[in-house]
């Protein structure tokens, strides 16, 4: 069978798990193509007006896969929680319902299941058994084996992230993560940290290719999802109380951790237009940047981020970083 996986939202977190599971069961995984104009436009016209752009784009990816005749199912999970007492955004928790409401004719093709990512293997096993049943796999041994393969792959991906290989590299090396693990990371004179939800940080079409743009100017780029959560646990105190959403905590605390790190020159947040949750961690980082004096810049992804204005802003930010290090401006 061919299982379509939309290249959006939690794809940028759990793709290894899903890939490992489905391929181990002998299915083909078909990804929607990286976001482009057409996907964006379809998304914008399918979803309700004032919803965040990331969710709109996701609609576009789903639609793209629904339109492919050879794709049997499109995988749209409902990810509810990721850490103890930390949940996902209401829109994410409503995702299958939103997708269903937008593409009612294709409801049958959607493959969705409720997933709690923090409740151990048993909960995952239950969820994936349900997925299995829906695609005609009732052999529990096979499900268990496939889930094991998925978890292994996910763990390996996490190791790659900890080694500062970003998630896009994980995606392109999904069949050979071992060699990615071995690959050394290039050191540069400057390092910029990106804080934000993985789907905003890694969708280059939407955010004006920030990662590539920075790397092209010889900046090392790190992302908050590379950090071991233990490292930033203590920032709860500054925040007075933990945020309710796991990914927002990662962005907020990870961002603060980077601000306190000597080898990080500046932090850029990347968030989605109309995302209310980012507003909270951005404010926290604003205040923290005031305290630490670490340069901070916000990029808000919307329907036309990649314009000239953004390029100028990034350049100005990089100049600021260079000046802070006592290096003069580089004529470019």
């Amino acid at each position, binding site marked *: 069978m061919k299982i379509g996986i939309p290249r959006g939202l939690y794809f940028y977190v759990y793709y290894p798990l899903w890939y490992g599971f489905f391929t181990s069961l002998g299915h083909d995984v078909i990804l929607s193509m990286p976001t482009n104009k057409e996907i964006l436009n379809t998304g914008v016209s399918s979803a309700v007006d004032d919803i965040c752009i990331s969710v709109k784009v996701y609609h576009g990816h789903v639609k793209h896969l629904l339109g492919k005749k050879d794709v049997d199912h499109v995988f749209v999970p409902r990810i509810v929680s990721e850490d103890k007492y930390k949940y996902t955004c*209401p829109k994410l928790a409503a995702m299958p*319902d939103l997708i269903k*409401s937008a593409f009612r004719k294709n409801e049958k093709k959607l493959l969705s299941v409720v997933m709690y990512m923090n409740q151990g293997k048993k909960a995952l096993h239950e969820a994936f058994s349900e997925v299995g049943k829906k695609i005609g796999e009732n052999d529990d041994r096979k499900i268990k084996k496939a889930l094991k393969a998925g978890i292994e792959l996910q763990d390996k991906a996490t190791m790659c992230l900890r080694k500062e290989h970003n998630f896009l590299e994980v995606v392109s090396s999904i069949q050979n993560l071992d060699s990615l693990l071995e690959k050394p990371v290039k050191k540069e004179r400057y390092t910029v940290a990106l804080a934000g939800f993985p789907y905003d940080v890694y969708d280059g079409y939407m955010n004006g290719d920030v990662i590539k743009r920075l790397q092209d100017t010889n900046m090392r780029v790190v992302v908050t999802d590379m950090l071991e959560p233990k490292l930033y646990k203590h920032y709860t105190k500054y925040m007075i109380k933990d945020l309710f959403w796991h990914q927002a905590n990662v962005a907020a605390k990870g961002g603060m951790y980077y601000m306190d790190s000597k080898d990080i020159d500046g932090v850029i947040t990347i968030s989605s237009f109309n995302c*209310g*949750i980012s*507003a*909270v961690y951005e404010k926290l980082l*604003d205040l923290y940047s005031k305290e630490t004096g670490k340069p901070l810049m916000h990029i808000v992804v919307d329907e036309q981020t990649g314009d000239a204005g953004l390029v100028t802003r990034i350049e100005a930010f990089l100049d600021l970083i260079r000046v802070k290090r006592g290096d003069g401006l580089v004529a470019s």
Partner: protein
Amino acid sequence: MHRKITYTFPRMGYSYAAFESFFKILGYDVMVPDPSNSKTLKEGVSNSPQGMCFPFKILLGQFAKLLKENPDKYFKIVSLESYGPCRFGYYSPLYNKILEDMGVTNFEVVNVEGIYPPWYKGVPRFIKKLVKLVGWHAPWAGVRAFVIAGWKVYAVERLERKFYHLIPREKVSGSSEKAFNRAFERIHHAPNKVKSIKKILNEELKKMDQIDHIDDVELPKVGLVGEAYMLMDYSNNLEIEKKLAYMGVDIDRSLWVTNWTLDRLLKTKQHLKHMKEVNKGYLDFFIGGDGQESIMNTILYKKKGFDGVIQVLPFGCLPETAAKQILSNVSEDYDVPVLSLSFDEQTGDAGFVTRLEAFVDMLKSRREIKSKESKAKKAESVTTR
């Protein structure tokens, strides 16, 4: 310097009368923030993160004004919130940080959250918060304050319902409003005894009944659903209920302090049953805020014979925006017109009224068509006989 503590809390609709009494009964000084004006809105908006919920911005502006105007006082801002499942759960840390950043320091925020897991930590934390909030009081004093405040909430809601019922039926325009305002003030300042509150309520209800009005009319019926604060705070939703009522509409609001508290905190059985049955296939999952309620109540209104539903939401509200997308399907499936109105600081009176009027006109003409159709059907069945 020892400054006496003054309590304050988020102002919402007419319920402030009851919350005010609660603190007064316990013997504290209390001040209610003024309703929003363009200055408080501007201040709240410009100091909040841009994408933050509109209610947060509204309240921030109102608190900032109160605190700045009374620099000689020290405030305890009581923020009622839960640990999520929405941004609501993070209001108080942000008030703290932002007000401080604005240079306001004569306050502390006390957030009364529900008890959240893990239980062995949650329960003591809740008790600690309560003590921090009201101090060590003889338990009965607390209970008494709670009961009386509860009665006031109830009384005000009864009056409000009567008020909205009367407006489209009154013969002299404005007469019920006058009566309501007087009744509200009487409850607001009623002596703190259940008996007195009951007595005043009955008297005032009777007086309102005596207003010259026509009871026997068929009006278009509109149900209001949406995010709790926006829906319940008349001062920020541009008095949507009153406006609709003056347009000749029978309105019903789905969320009130009483039913909201009962349904949420006590999880009444009927509420849970409705949520499960009605939402099935639309929004099967609790997503926080009032999103699921909005869908449920829209369907229930249709089943009760309402002509249309208006969803009131703060711009960018997470659960309500999700609900908005799904409501368009509900509207189609159940053949019930739904108007979603998002509010932010730019929502002006003029465009707003036009949209309401257009919606009401549409409902009226739908009613006419329907009644003609049913008449035609009747006539048909007569002739065929």
